[in-house]
């Protein structure tokens, strides 16, 4: 017993879409591991492999299930044997029931019984793992969830792509399974090119020989191995021409997933295509040709590209020449778009935005542009008194969406904004204007940089504000995991901009302004919408605090004391974090909770007569109150609060707040009430812990 063997399963299919390879191998591993441990075969983790045509797993399992013993208790001894010690009919039946001779029956008193009974110890033989595998594997394979499953030929079996070969080994034994008519063997197929010369399948004598045997047949079956080889080749080939690949982790993953043998090819493109904006080249190469651009240390592109080929060599240069040819065709198209788009002023497309729906109830992009212009005008005049600046902001808002009707953005939607900016730059627009248009979709994700220019930030803010507020106003509100319009992302971007820019614009104010601009298009009552938006933005602000890295205690207590003034919130969080480790705050938190409880059903007056106070501890507090209320600096306020911890403890130690004497009691409640108000300017310390 305890003998272990290695298991290997490989599904060899027609080319599986790259995006499914990782999830499918992971899902099967999880299902298999759960099954193996439920069968008592050990809970070792599976190693997984994949390439475009292969999904494979390897791991060790016990050769057989362990034997299991179980005890069966039967009737009392007196009923099983007669006085002469001979078995009775009932005794014999008990032995028969479990398939043993009567001689195997023992008599002993089991726990919980009052007298000795017939007892049998039975051994259940563990089954060989290969049998269990043969029974379970077809179901585990068929049970894999495939997001876009297909059928093929006559079969009703559904899978990601047709399964053409099945390799299933347990040690050196083939696990006898059949999936959709394909019978398992100890062979598989290597690279297509390899089998061009070698018509026979590749024998895999043992699970351990798997990767080496496949590499001999032209397949590097580990995705990490392929990725690291590709990364090294990219660097080396770029260095040869004095550059480095333009970083793109996603593209690197893609290349590792679309080839069975990693080989990077470097090609050239005509130098005059470098007239195209860098973003266009990088996007065109990535989207159309899965190719990397090469940049110099100063960020300028070189007229070269890098792409992956699914073969070991390029004997006659066809692979390089082919990729160069296609790239030229693609760039020619990009250049055509770039030239054709510029024949017409960007602004001339404003009218055409009427044909482009933004959202059914909210109208076209033309309508949206109108709203964003109104918002930009209003907010720009709040942030600046420079008329020219306001004029430029309005101009940028007016032109921001025009590039949606350009050929280039039609071809590469991810270049929206960027192209509008580029075209305006070529038209000689003011730098502030074209820069703002170019940057106004930023930040696109949590990792993305914010607009660098103030105008870009304002335009981005207004665009996102209109999207979020408009959608809420027509009832498109994200819930749970459902957020098809990515409103949370837009809201987060908006909050990040406010946070980083420190503008004196409160979310509540922004919501009200944007709701006025949405006006008649709203389908829900404004009050309801404003409430939902307020909760939405509070969540976004809470997440922003998390992103900014403040400790939980700081976030909770600072947020509860108000979040509408983000600059103030930021200052409070900063000050609190500096003191977060100070032990006095733990004590302050206790006292704050206590104050909260005491004041729960009270409505004390603001003013009270200090003279009434008797105890020195409360007189000390009253004295400090003046200091607290007198300071505007968050740091100073915080220091004063920290100093309050000990006096508060002393106060609660010696004073009974709700005393019999009404005037004294009122004064004490007012004192606490005003102390709490002073706390709450900074944070709700009752939430500190």
């Amino acid at each position: 017993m305890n003998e272990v063997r290695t298991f290997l399963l490989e599904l060899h299919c027609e080319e599986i879409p790259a995006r499914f390879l990782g999830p499918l191998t992971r899902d099967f591993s999880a299902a298999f591991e759960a099954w193996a441990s439920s069968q008592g075969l050990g809970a070792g983790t599976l190693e997984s492999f994949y390439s475009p045509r292969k999904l494979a797993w390897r791991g060790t399992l016990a050769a057989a299930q362990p034997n299991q013993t179980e005890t069966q208790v039967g009737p009392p001894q007196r009923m099983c044997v007669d006085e002469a010690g001979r078995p009775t009919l009932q005794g014999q039946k008990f032995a028969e029931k479990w398939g043993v001779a009567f001689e195997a029956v023992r008599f002993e008193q089991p726990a919980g019984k009052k007298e000795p009974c017939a007892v049998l110890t039975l051994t259940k033989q563990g089954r060989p793992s290969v049998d269990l595998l043969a029974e379970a594997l077809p179901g585990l394979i068929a049970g894999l969830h495939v997001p876009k499953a297909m059928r093929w030929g006559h079969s009703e079996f559904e899978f990601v792509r047709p399964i053409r070969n099945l390799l299933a080994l347990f040690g050196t034994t083939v696990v006898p399974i059949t999936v959709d008519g394909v019978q398992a063997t100890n062979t598989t197929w290597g690279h297509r090119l390899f089998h061009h010369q070698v018509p026979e399948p590749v024998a895999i004598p043992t699970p351990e020989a798997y990767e080496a045997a496949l590499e001999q047949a032209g397949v590097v079956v580990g995705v990490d191995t392929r990725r690291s080889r590709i990364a090294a080749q990219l660097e080396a080939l770029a260095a040869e021409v004095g550059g480095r690949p333009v970083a793109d982790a996603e593209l690197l993953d893609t290349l590792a997933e679309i080839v069975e043998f990693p080989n990077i090819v470097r090609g050239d493109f005509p130098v005059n295509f470098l007239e195209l904006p860098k973003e266009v080249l990088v996007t065109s190469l990535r989207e159309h040709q899965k190719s990397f651009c090469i940049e110099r240390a100063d960020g300028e592109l070189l007229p070269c590209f890098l792409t992956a080929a699914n073969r070991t060599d390029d004997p006659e240069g066809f692979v390089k020449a082919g990729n160069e040819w296609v790239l030229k065709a693609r760039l020619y198209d990009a250049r055509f778009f770039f030239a054709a788009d510029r024949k017409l002023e960007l602004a001339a497309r404003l009218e055409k935005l009427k044909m482009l729906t933004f959202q059914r109830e909210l109208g076209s992009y033309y309508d949206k542009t109108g709203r964003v212009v109104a918002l930009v005008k209003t907010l720009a005049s709040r942030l600046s008194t420079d008329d020219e600046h306001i004029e430029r902001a309005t101009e940028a808002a007016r032109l921001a969406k025009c590039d949606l009707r350009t050929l280039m953005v039609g071809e590469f939607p991810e270049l929206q904004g960027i192209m509008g900016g580029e075209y305006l730059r070529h038209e000689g627009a003011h730098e502030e204007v074209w820069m703002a248009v170019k940057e106004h979709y930023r930040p696109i994700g949590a990792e993305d940089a914010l607009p660098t220019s103030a105008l870009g930030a304002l335009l981005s803010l207004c665009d996102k504000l209109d999207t979020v507020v408009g959608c809420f106003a027509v009832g498109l509100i994200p819930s749970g995991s459902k957020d098809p319009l990515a409103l949370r992302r837009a809201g987060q971007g908006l909050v990040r901009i406010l946070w980083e820019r420190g503008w004196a614009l409160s979310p509540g104010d922004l919501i009200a302004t944007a709701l006025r601009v949405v006006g008649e298009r709203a389908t829900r009552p404004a009050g309801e919408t404003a409430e939902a938006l307020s909760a939405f933005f509070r969540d976004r602000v809470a997440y922003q605090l998390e992103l900014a890295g403040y400790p939980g205690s700081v976030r909770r207590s600072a947020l509860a004391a108000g979040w509408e003034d983000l600059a103030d919130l930021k200052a409070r969080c900063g000050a609190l974090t500096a003191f977060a480790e100070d032990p006095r705050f733990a004590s302050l938190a206790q006292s704050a909770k206590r104050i909260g409880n005491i004041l729960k059903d009270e409505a004390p007056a603001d003013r009270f007569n200090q003279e009434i106070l008797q105890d020195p501890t409360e007189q000390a507090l009253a004295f400090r109150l003046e200091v607290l209320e007198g300071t505007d600096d968050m740091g100073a306020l915080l220091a004063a609060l920290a100093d309050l911890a000990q006096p508060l403890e002393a106060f609660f130690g010696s004073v009974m707040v709700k005393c019999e004497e009404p005037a004294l009691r009122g004064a004490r409640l007012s004192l606490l009430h005003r102390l709490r108000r002073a706390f709450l300017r900074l944070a709700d310390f009752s939430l500190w812990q």
Partner: protein
Amino acid sequence: MHIQELILRLQRFWADRGCLIGQPYDLEKGAGTMNPLTFFGALGPKPWNVAYVEPSRRPADGRYGENPFRVYKHLQFQVILKPSPARVQELYIESLEAMGIDFSKHDLRFEEDNWESPTLGAWGVGWQVVLDGMEISQFTYFQQVGGLDCRPVSAELTYGIERICMFLGGYDNIFDLVHGEVKTDDGVFPVTYGQMRQREEFELSAYSFEHADIDLHRSLFDAFEKEGWRLMKEHGHFLSAYEQALKMSHTFNVLDSRGAVSTTERPGIIKRVRDLACACAKAYLEFETTDLVARAAQQTRAKGGA
């Protein structure tokens, strides 16, 4: 290689492997899939292998004959194999070899590219086939056509004829391709693609971007739709009704390239074409089924009588 030589080799190759060689269908269409040989052929249980060339019109791709890589009309070579054979990828690779592509010197990949035709109510999964970085074919396992499940599943292979020719010959301009050679008593005259088609590209691009009468096309679209439903409802004629659906589809493409279709309108218009196409598919399948039953009954009677 000359365009006509490539087509001839593909036809020979697929005829030798048990395909009927079909002909283009004489109505404007955006893709070879719309030919009834595929649209109806992919439906129902009967075995069906067919290959043919289909001139395909994409009004929005028109470039006035000025772009060396993009054209209003191109040639698709279309193969339907029903049921999809187990060796379908190998067969496809052999067809490339028949075109003269030496597989040992080139890079070949099958990259995910799922196909969907909202106007035909059809979709499938498959790949774009990439040779040395260039997409040369579309490879699809049909899952549904005309809104109906395909049982069995057909494999559809579509070769872009001009692209492959340009690629094999290293041409930088589609109009420099040689279609074939005219041999007369006076000598041999190679005829280029440009000589045959460049003016057509110019006029048809101008038509779809500038000259097509928008109001006329809107009313044509409505009229074709009405006619199609009349044929279906009053006569149960799915073939003539399907022609009306094809005309609707092309009319829509012209309106679209004229910039006359807003994004809100678009899904609704596509649905109108799809509804008619799906009705045709359903009627065809009903016809096929009753036809098969009738034939089987006839055979039984014939046997019984002997």
